[in-house]
């Protein structure tokens, strides 16, 4: 038998082995004439156990139980330490959980690796949607590189017999559910064989909508519901874990081939001009993403030969599900954000572990006499280190368990507050548990090994003579202790500054919304294209509605626009002249700038009859031409298609929270009127406008208008950044509190050790300020060093965060000053408060007692 196996076998049968040995030794002793020559049975038994090599395990169990007993004797320390570690490790686990679930893993589709999303690309620009007929052309002429093509067209539709409500629906290809591999929770899902263009129209309800809006009624399947006033049968309820391609699960799924049942006049399914649908595909086995791109170039050229709307140099750009359908630069951006967040949460763990390490060392200094006695009795230094480390194990174990609870609670809370779709599963996975164990072990090094090693290095036997005074003072002054204080101060300083930058970013988003006035504005939507109202007819309809709206006394002004602020979807273009800038293009009528209160910095607004003219935002002008003096110049700089007639102030109406965007305005063309919306400015309150707007829009009974105040969109858009900045501030403040706690602990302990000395100095007439200086001096240096390191790190971190891809707001001098004042005040209070407490108590009394 292998020696190890034999030893394990012994360990498992130890009681029996020991009984045999004792019996054997007793027999031997009894047989002897002089049993005293046998030796001490207990010692011999101990030596026999040692032969099997398991004595360390007994020691460890003993040390562990001492550790647990010690913790139970001081529950406040145990709770505080658990909370500190749970916070430090838990933050890292939360980040790991959220990244694992939401960002870096491909969506949970069947054969996830073979999925791609196609963008329509041309030299110099890409658009995310493609015309429906093109998708069908590609489906039929893809030279076998695609196994299947799946489509989605998201839109708001009216819900209820009288269209009393609006919901988010997706018109999807009928193979949607089969291809991504999800069935129904009740009833059935859409099917390519059943749900053809001429089949009875059906709807599949999402699980969340069924639960929240239909009261989880199991009899909902088979009932008739109304979508845009058209009756439709509920075929089934989608399963709860159905993922969305872009994190978005709509309320209802309809078959795109049945779209004309709802909108008989709609040309979406036939028009090569509408860039409407999101196109996804599954690659055929063995086909790479690059091979698909090349093979489909031929398909696109064939389409271009057939249709004038497709240009010869266009191609379909595939984005793989493996990279979450992100472009390379988007993915790099996400990775950069994740790495930065990882660095910050690691910093929190360092601060937490350093804090706890200092606390543990303070507690160990109180035990130097006991440790001295152990060493005097023959224990080696390694044994002392082992003892102290094992005693810290229960602490770290509780911290690691607490951190798992923290991670689960935090991820669930963030998911609930952020309105994450239910298919994102944040339950604790094995990977997270392993990370908790790994981080727990790392913390054990700082919390257990380093303090134990430092304590064991001291002249512990000497400590028996002077009650441990000398050793305790020496430990109190060790470099490690100062490094730990400095690390806490540096970490909290840096985190506070990053939190400050995040808060400023949210403020910027709010401030940038001051570049346009959303407070008194409302939006009227009615996609006339669906009802067959196009071009001239649509324009006339909109003009009539606009005239009626303007005639109302509550209305100050109104404008028609293709993408209203805060809610509109636009195509983003990366012009060759401004590669790092996303240009968002809107078509607007002349009154738009006045209605949204966006100042024109130079030039004029659009006038009737304007053709091939554009208005650029200040930023676009600066980035493309290096000046805002661009009136009359050709746009874009390298393409020269249009003429600039005006420069508008920056107003990030579509993406208020982004920093890498600029706006381009074009005059409305007659074709735009089938899908435009209207922004309306109230004389008094925006909330009074929606019923007025709906009323004004309902001259044609087919049309179902919807209207809402713009501040509703703003609140929804700001929810995410607000949560993120609140979390960052919370972490910053908590870390600062931790650092303060650490400093208070170190100062208090230093003062406690020097009570006698302080008492003598008070008795000799020393003044309070002088005493205070001498107490604080010891900690002041590491605090100052930590603050300098923190500030020095804040500069490159700030620069990195202010540039691509984070675009956090650089802390302006005032914000920087405020953050530093708060930081300085908190640290100063942590330094002085414990010293003042001791001086207030009159240390001379302590001298009398001793």
């Amino acid at each position, binding site marked *: 038998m292998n020696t190890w196996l034999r030893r394990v076998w012994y360990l498992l049968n130890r009681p029996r082995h020991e009984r045999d040995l004792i019996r054997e030794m007793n*027999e031997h*002793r009894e047989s002897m004439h002089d049993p005293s*020559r046998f030796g*001490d049975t207990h010692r*011999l038994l101990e030596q026999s156990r*040692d032969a099997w090599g398991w004595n360390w395990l007994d020691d460890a169990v003993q040390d562990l139980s001492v550790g647990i007993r010690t913790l139970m004797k001081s529950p406040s320390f145990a709770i505080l330490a658990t909370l500190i570690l749970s916070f430090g490790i838990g933050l890292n686990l939360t980040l790991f959980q959220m990244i694992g679930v939401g960002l870096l893993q491909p969506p949970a589709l069947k054969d996830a690796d073979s999925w791609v999303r196609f963008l329509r690309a041309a030299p110099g620009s890409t658009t995310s949607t493609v015309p429906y007929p093109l998708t069908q052309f590609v489906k039929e002429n893809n030279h076998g590189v695609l196994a299947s093509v799946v489509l989605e067209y998201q839109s708001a539709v009216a819900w209820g017999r009288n269209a009393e409500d609006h919901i988010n629906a997706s018109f999807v290809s009928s193979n949607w559910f089969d291809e991504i591999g999800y069935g129904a929770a009740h009833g059935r899902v859409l099917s390519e064989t059943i749900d053809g263009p001429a089949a009875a129209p059906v709807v599949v309800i999402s699980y969340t909508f069924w639960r929240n809006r239909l009261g989880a009624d199991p009899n909902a399947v088979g009932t008739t519901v109304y979508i845009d006033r058209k009756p439709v049968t509920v075929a089934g309820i989608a399963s709860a874990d159905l993922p969305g391609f872009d994190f978005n699960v709509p309320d209802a799924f309809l078959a795109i081939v049945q779209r004309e049942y709802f909108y008989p006049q709609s040309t979406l399914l036939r028009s090569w001009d509408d860039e409407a649908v999101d196109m996804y595909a599954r690659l055929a086995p063995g086909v790479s993403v690059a091979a698909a791109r090349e093979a489909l170039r031929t398909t696109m050229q064939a389409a271009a030969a057939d249709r004038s709307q497709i240009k010869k140099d266009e191609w379909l750009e595939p984005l793989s599900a493996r990279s979450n359908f992100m472009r390379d630069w988007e993915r790099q951006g996400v990775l950069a954000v994740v790495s930065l967040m990882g660095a910050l949460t690691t910093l929190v763990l360092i601060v937490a572990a350093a804090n706890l390490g200092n606390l543990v060392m303070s507690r160990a200094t109180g035990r130097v006499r006991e440790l001295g006695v152990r060493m005097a009795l023959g224990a080696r230094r390694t044994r002392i280190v082992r003892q102290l480390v094992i005693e810290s194990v229960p602490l770290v174990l509780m911290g690691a368990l607490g951190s798992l609870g923290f991670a689960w609670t935090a991820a669930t809370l963030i998911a609930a507050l952020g309105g994450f779709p239910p298919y994102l599963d944040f339950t604790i996975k094995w990977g997270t548990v392993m990370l908790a164990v790994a981080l727990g072990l790392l913390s054990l090094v700082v919390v257990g090994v380093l303090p134990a090693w430092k304590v064991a290095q001291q002249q512990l036997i000497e400590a028996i003579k002077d009650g441990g005074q000398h050793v305790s003072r020496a430990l109190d002054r060790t470099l490690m202790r100062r490094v730990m204080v400095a690390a806490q101060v540096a970490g909290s300083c840096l985190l506070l500054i990053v939190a400050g930058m995040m808060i400023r970013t949210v403020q910027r988003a709010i401030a940038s919304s001051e570049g346009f006035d959303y407070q008194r504005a409302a939006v009227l939507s009615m996609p006339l294209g669906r009802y067959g109202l196009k071009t001239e007819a649509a324009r006339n309809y909109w003009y009539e509605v606009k005239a009626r709206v303007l005639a109302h006394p509550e209305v100050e002004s109104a404008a028609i626009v293709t993408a209203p602020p805060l809610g509109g979807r636009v195509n983003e273009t990366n012009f060759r002249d401004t590669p790092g800038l996303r240009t968002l293009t809107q078509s607007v009528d002349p009154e738009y700038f006045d209605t949204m209160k966006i100042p024109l910095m130079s030039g004029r607004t659009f006038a009737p009859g304007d053709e091939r003219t554009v208005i650029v935002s200040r930023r676009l002008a600066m980035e493309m031409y290096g000046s805002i003096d661009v009136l009359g110049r050709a746009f874009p700089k390298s393409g020269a298609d249009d003429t600039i007639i005006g420069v508008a102030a920056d107003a990030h109406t579509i993406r208020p929270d982004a920093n890498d965007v600029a706006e381009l305005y074009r005059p409305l063309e007659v074709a735009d009127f089938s899908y435009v919306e209207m922004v309306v400015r109230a004389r008094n309150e925006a909330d009074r406008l929606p019923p007025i707007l709906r009323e004004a829009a309902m001259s044609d009974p087919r049309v179902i208008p919807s209207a809402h105040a713009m501040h509703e969109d703003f609140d929804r858009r700001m929810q995410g950044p607000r949560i993120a900045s609140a979390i960052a501030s919370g972490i910053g403040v908590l870390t600062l509190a931790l650092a303060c706690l650490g400093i208070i602990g170190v100062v208090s302990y230093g003062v406690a050790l020097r009570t006698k000395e302080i008492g003598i100095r008070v008795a000799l007439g020393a003044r309070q300020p002088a005493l205070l200086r001498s107490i604080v001096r010891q900690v002041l240096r590491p605090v100052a060093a930590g603050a300098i390191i923190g500030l020095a790190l804040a500069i490159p971190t700030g620069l990195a965060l202010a540039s691509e891809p984070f675009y956090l707001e650089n802390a302006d001098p005032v914000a920087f000053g405020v953050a530093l004042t708060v930081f300085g005040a908190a640290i100063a209070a942590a330094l002085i408060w414990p010293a003042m407490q001791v001086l207030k108590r009159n240390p001379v009394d302590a001298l009398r007692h001793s």
Partner: protein
Amino acid sequence: MPRAAGLPPGTLSLLILRVVRQEPMHGYAIAQKIRTLSSDQLSVEEGSLYPALQKLLANGWVKAEWTTSETGRQVRSYRITARGLKQLESEQDDYQRMADAIAAILQST
């Protein structure tokens, strides 16, 4: 243990292996045999046999089983294994080399 009796470290294991090579023996008999063979020169603390026996067991050099002695008592007797025999030979060679070397130095002028 062995050191107290003047034995160099590790020699007790060698002696035990040597003694149990001929026949399985219990602890008391091993102690008696060592004493007899050494003409009472090596009077070890008898109990120190047991940690040494545990070491031999742990290494798989001997095996132990409960048997009945000639006097009818239950005793635990130790039997050398094949690995134990190999170990004995190698330790014996090492010891002999060492003893010869020391003797050569001591006899030199």
